[in-house]
């Protein structure tokens, strides 16, 4: 809502500087999001965030003048010589203004004298420029008549500004129309402030001033049967009034009105439209003007019958913008006996529009159900100043004030005669009464607000307050407000808002500390993050939104997705089922500028469930690693080794070990998206936790990864974390020295290393403290199909120093077991 202060001060005295006003309004919930200066210098302390340069109208150099004479420029067809009077001697200058012509006289214009700084009317984007005397086609011109664009008022630069006839010649323009325009963000509960009077009321309450609403006369009720009004459903339209104004002379509205509308962000059209818009901005009540003669014509010269009703299926309406609208009973319309003539509260119809030839205006002032208006404005994508106000709720009480005010302006400014009004208001809204126990104020705000202050604030906001006994007040809501819906809490907000939040002390909670519970899922999730970061991996976080195609190779065909009905882009149209696909996306984008990376992400996937409205949202962990094993360094080999399966497995093992997950098992993985020979699945007590390994090279292209080997992992974090013990046993540090013995065994290729290790442990019993595989050998010294595995065995007892003989005995047992069960033989 744009509020020109000059206009605002018609309704309330502004006793504080502009900067202070901005602050008070902002703190009271009317956030001033922007300030625009019109010709005036920036007042002290006022923050102006204006992207466009704004000229300051010099008091001595930008003045109101009267045109004395307009002549043709002797040497240029398109140029004129205009002589003006601005209070001193007549002054001649050259102009290209298209709205002056030879012989013109008496117009009030704005003259800028040499030295004035204005906007360059032709520069784009506009820049400030100082006016200097110049010769134009041989004639010296040291002043100019100004356009609205040059003055920084609007983009209008077709012609110069023509002021109203009574504009005082010689007055500095800044005194006549310099202004400050506040741009206020009006929140939904402050919809009443989508009007000058609404804002003025707030200013009055905040500064202890009084509202000066414009006077409205009532008119004699006419007996002329000019129209009939019928409301089908008072819930959709509580009140409808139609006022007839005859003999309206359509023409431009006066300069002051055009200026105010322009500063408030609306384009002046003609006096009829401008008056309806002006009153809407003033009162917050949108109005609509019909051509009464056209309505009479449609009624076959009879009395028009105006109905407010839902559209019937199949009805159509050509709206003011020339679009044909297909209507349904969802849409509330204004209709006559021949069909719809307007989309109620949203846009008028073309058939009954006021035109240049309109003589008689039927003025609609009505209130509509905000839900219905919202729905219609949305359905047709027709946001407008009117629908904006209606869709937030306009109090039916405003109908009469606005209709009377507009009628008066029609009489004043368009030469019309007000015939009278017909109205339907089947169920007037009763005033809302709230009982406010003073103790509730303390309970909510934490401070005692003296009853005098409570009354002062409520009175200032035009509430009626009576004592209701037992520490309570009976408060009646003024008739312009619809937002006091929940009674006491709404009133408390009004109290603290006007009293000032800066008056509240800051306290810390007195309330006892609630029962504290550990959030284990979160604690463990964060632990996983820390472990992986310690392993040298970088965490990434991706959009949960993706496409089915991107993930398809990882999640398989034919799975259900949570799909968006209104995606912003097709790239982000379904909720992901794979975190790995996300991390691969990060990898691909980074691999354009790095050689290698190690990434992980922990996040949710969204899995629709049969028979459930809402999906399951389990957490997943995904890892992607690729590139050199070591970061590049000045003494590293020219061809550094690349990360392989075992680097990733090392990370997986570190994760499991740090989480103290017991007995994880690795087996060849079955996943189609992994390299069949270089991938493993992880099982813990037989549950499949996830898979990892080299991404199937056939998928590199799909994920934009080029020809490198990419190592990937995806784990079901819920399953994994379920396996993490809450506590784990700590082994004492052994007091007696260990004995290390190495053995190498030769066995079939097909026997997995893990199996050999398991048998060694089984054979070694409790004296075998540790087993480490330190060499795998295949080669000419071994028979075809055999490999040699070398293990370092550490023997140690907790209660004595072992002898070599002890160790040898255990080793013998181990070797025997390997020979017996795995067909191994000790390598010499």
């Amino acid at each position, binding site marked *: 809502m744009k509020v020109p202060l000059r206009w605002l001060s018609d309704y309330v005295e502004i006793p504080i500087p502009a900067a202070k006003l901005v602050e008070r309004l*902002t*703190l009271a*919930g009317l956030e001033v999001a922007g300030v625009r200066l019109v010709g005036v210098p920036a007042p002290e302390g006022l*923050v102006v*965030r204006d992207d466009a340069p704004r000229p300051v109208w010099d008091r001595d150099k930008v003045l109101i003048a009267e045109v004395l004479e307009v002549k043709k420029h002797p040497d240029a067809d398109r140029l004129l010589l205009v002589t003006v009077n601005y209070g001193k001697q007549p002054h001649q200058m050259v102009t290209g203004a298209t709205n002056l012509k030879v012989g013109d006289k008496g117009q009030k214009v704005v003259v800028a004298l040499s030295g004035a700084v204005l906007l360059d009317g032709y520069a784009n984007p506009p820049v400030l420029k100082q006016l200097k005397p110049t010769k134009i086609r041989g004639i010296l011109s040291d002043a100019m008549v100004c356009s609205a664009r040059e003055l920084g008022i609007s983009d209008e630069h077709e012609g110069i500004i023509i002021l109203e006839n009574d504009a005082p010649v010689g007055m500095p323009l800044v005194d006549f129309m310099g202004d400050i325009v506040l741009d206020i963000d009006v929140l*939904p509960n402050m919809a009443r402030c989508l009007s000058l009077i609404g804002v003025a009321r707030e200013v009055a309450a905040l500064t202890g001033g009084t509202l000066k609403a414009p006077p409205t006369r009532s008119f004699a009720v006419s007996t002329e049967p000019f129209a009939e009004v019928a409301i089908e459903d008072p819930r959709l339209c509580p009140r409808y009034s139609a006022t007839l104004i005859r003999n309206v002379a359509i023409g431009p509205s006066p300069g002051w009105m055009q200026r105010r509308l322009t500063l408030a962000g609306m384009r002046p059209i003609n006096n009829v439209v401008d008056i309806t818009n002006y009153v809407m901005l003033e009162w917050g009540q949108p109005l609509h003007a019909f051509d009464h003669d056209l309505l009479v014509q449609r009624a076959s010269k009879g009395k028009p019958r105006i109905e407010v009703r839902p559209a019937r299926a199949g009805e159509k309406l050509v709206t003011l913008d020339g679009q044909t609208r297909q209507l349904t009973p969802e849409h509330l319309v204004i209709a006559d006996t021949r069909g719809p003539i307007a989309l109620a509260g949203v846009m008028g119809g073309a058939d009954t529009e006021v035109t240049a030839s309109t003589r008689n205006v039927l003025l609609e002032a009505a209130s509509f159900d905000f*839900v219905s208006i919202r729905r219609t404005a949305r359905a047709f994508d027709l946001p407008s100043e009117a629908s904006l106000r209606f869709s937030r*709720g306009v109090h039916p009480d405003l109908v009469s004030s606005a209709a009377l005010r507009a009628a008066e302006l029609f009489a004043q400014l368009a030469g019309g005669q007000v015939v009278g009004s017909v109205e339907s208001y089947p169920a007037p809204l009763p005033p809302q009464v709230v009982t406010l126990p003073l103790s509730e104020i303390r309970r*909510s*705000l*934490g401070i005692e607000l003296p009853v005098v202050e409570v009354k002062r604030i409520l009175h200032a906001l035009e509430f009626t307050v009576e004592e209701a006994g037992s520490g309570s007040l009976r408060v009646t809501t003024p008739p312009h407000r619809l937002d006091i819906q*929940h009674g006491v*809490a709404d009133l408390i907000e009004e109290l*603290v*808002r006007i009293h000032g*939040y*800066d008056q*509240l*002390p*800051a*306290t*810390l*909670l*007195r*309330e006892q500390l*609630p029962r*504290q*519970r550990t*959030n284990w899922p979160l604690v463990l999730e*964060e632990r996983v993050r*820390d472990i*992986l*970061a310690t*392993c*040298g991996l*970088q*965490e990434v*976080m991706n*959009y*949960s*939104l993706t496409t089915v195609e991107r993930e398809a190779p990882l999640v398989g065909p034919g799975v259900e997705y*949570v*799909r*968006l*009905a209104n995606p*912003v882009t097709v790239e*982000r149209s379904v*909720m992901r089922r794979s975190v790995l696909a996300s991390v691969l996306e*990060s990898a691909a984008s*980074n691999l354009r*500028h*790095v050689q290698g990376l190690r990434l992980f992400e922990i996040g*949710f996937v*969204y899995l629709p469930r049969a028979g459930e*409205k*809402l*999906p399951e949202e389990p957490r997943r962990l995904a890892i992607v690693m690729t590139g050199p094993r070591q*970061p*590049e*360094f000045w003494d590293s080999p020219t061809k550094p080794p690349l990360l392989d399966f075992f680097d990733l497995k090392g990370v997986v093992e570190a994760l499991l070990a740090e989480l103290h997950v017991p007995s994880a098992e690795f087996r060849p993985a079955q996943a189609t998206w992994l390299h069949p020979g270089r991938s493993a699945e992880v099982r813990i007590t037989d549950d499949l936790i996830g898979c990892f390994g080299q991404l199937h090279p056939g998928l590199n292209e799909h994920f934009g990864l080029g020809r490198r080997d990419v190592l990937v992992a995806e784990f079901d974090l819920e399953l994994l974390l379920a396996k993490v013990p809450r506590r784990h046993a700590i082994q004492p540090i052994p007091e007696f020295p260990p004995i290390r013995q190495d053995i190498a065994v030769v066995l079939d290729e097909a026997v997995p290393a893990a199996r050999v290790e398991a048998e060694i442990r089984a054979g070694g019993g409790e004296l075998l403290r540790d087993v480490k595989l330190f060499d795998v050998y295949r080669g000419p010294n071994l028979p075809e199909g055999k490999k040699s595995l070398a293990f370092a065995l550490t023997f140690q007892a907790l209660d004595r120093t072992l002898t070599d003989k002890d160790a040898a005995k255990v080793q013998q047992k181990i070797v025997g077991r390997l020979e017996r069960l795995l067909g191994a033989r000790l390598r010499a």
Partner: protein
Amino acid sequence: MDLHGLQERALAELQACRDEAALHAWNGRYLGKSGELTLALKRIGELPPAERPAYGQKVNQIKQTLLAAAEQQERAIREAELTRSLTAEALDVTLPGRPVQRGRLHVATQVMRRIIAIFADLGFQVYRSREVEDDLTNFELLNMPPHHPARDMWDTFHTTTPGVLLRTHTSPGQIHVMRELCPEPIRVILPGMCYRYEQITTRSEIMFQQVEGLAIGTDITMTDLKGVIQAFAQRLFGEDRTVRIRSSYFPFTEPSIEVDMDCIVCGGKGCSLCKGTGWLEIMGAGMVHPVVLQHGGYDPTRYSGFAFGMGPQRITMLLYGLKDIRQFWANDLRFLEQF
């Protein structure tokens, strides 16, 4: 026998020894089996018996002197050699160190942890709830019936299942936690991802985190809210921060407020970060609306509560002076590695 001459010569030659080999040779020459001094001692028999003790004593004295001098020379040679070899091993210390493979948490995780830790100190615990929500919990139970004008404040992603949407804020978590814990008092924060139907620009994202706070009990007031917010701002942004409260509007709080903090760059004088106002908006908050308390199972005539909500991405942008919100989920390592 010129014993004195012998000593002088031996000492002079010793001084000339520059390495261990020379020292070894010198040793052989004077102190070895057929060294001069050894031979000099053997010659004792050639002397008259009366001179022998004095001679023997003299030779022994010289031997001690030479041994001590040799030991000293040997130490000197070793030291010199060590110095020489160390000098030869000298590195160019300006060469870069061998890089360690460093991992780290996403900046969003880092900042989220800081926020959670601060509220943990104030007794707020973490409660998380789902991201794909129903209209009922995301809007209706939060005092926004269908077509409520306030719904315009959130541009919503709807799913193809009617009534199912991506949560536009973490506030539906208020309903979940109230219904789970009622009638216990509550002090939780609700961190998590939210979604809005917006164009992706430097200033707006379709996905962002929020941290919402909720305290419910029989003695919780607006002044407590002010105190908690102030404590948070001072912990995260610095002890001399002050906050300013503005009246605002959210359907699920009443009264509703917006909280500004004095600008961390200019301290209130006005700069480009605060767009000249001297204030930075850090969160929205308010007293839990009676209708919402009721929907959570709490009797609004006995219980009261406050709620607040902030955007960790916005807070991160303030903390680090970032200008482009799209960087958070772009995961460019050149960005992430700076945190």
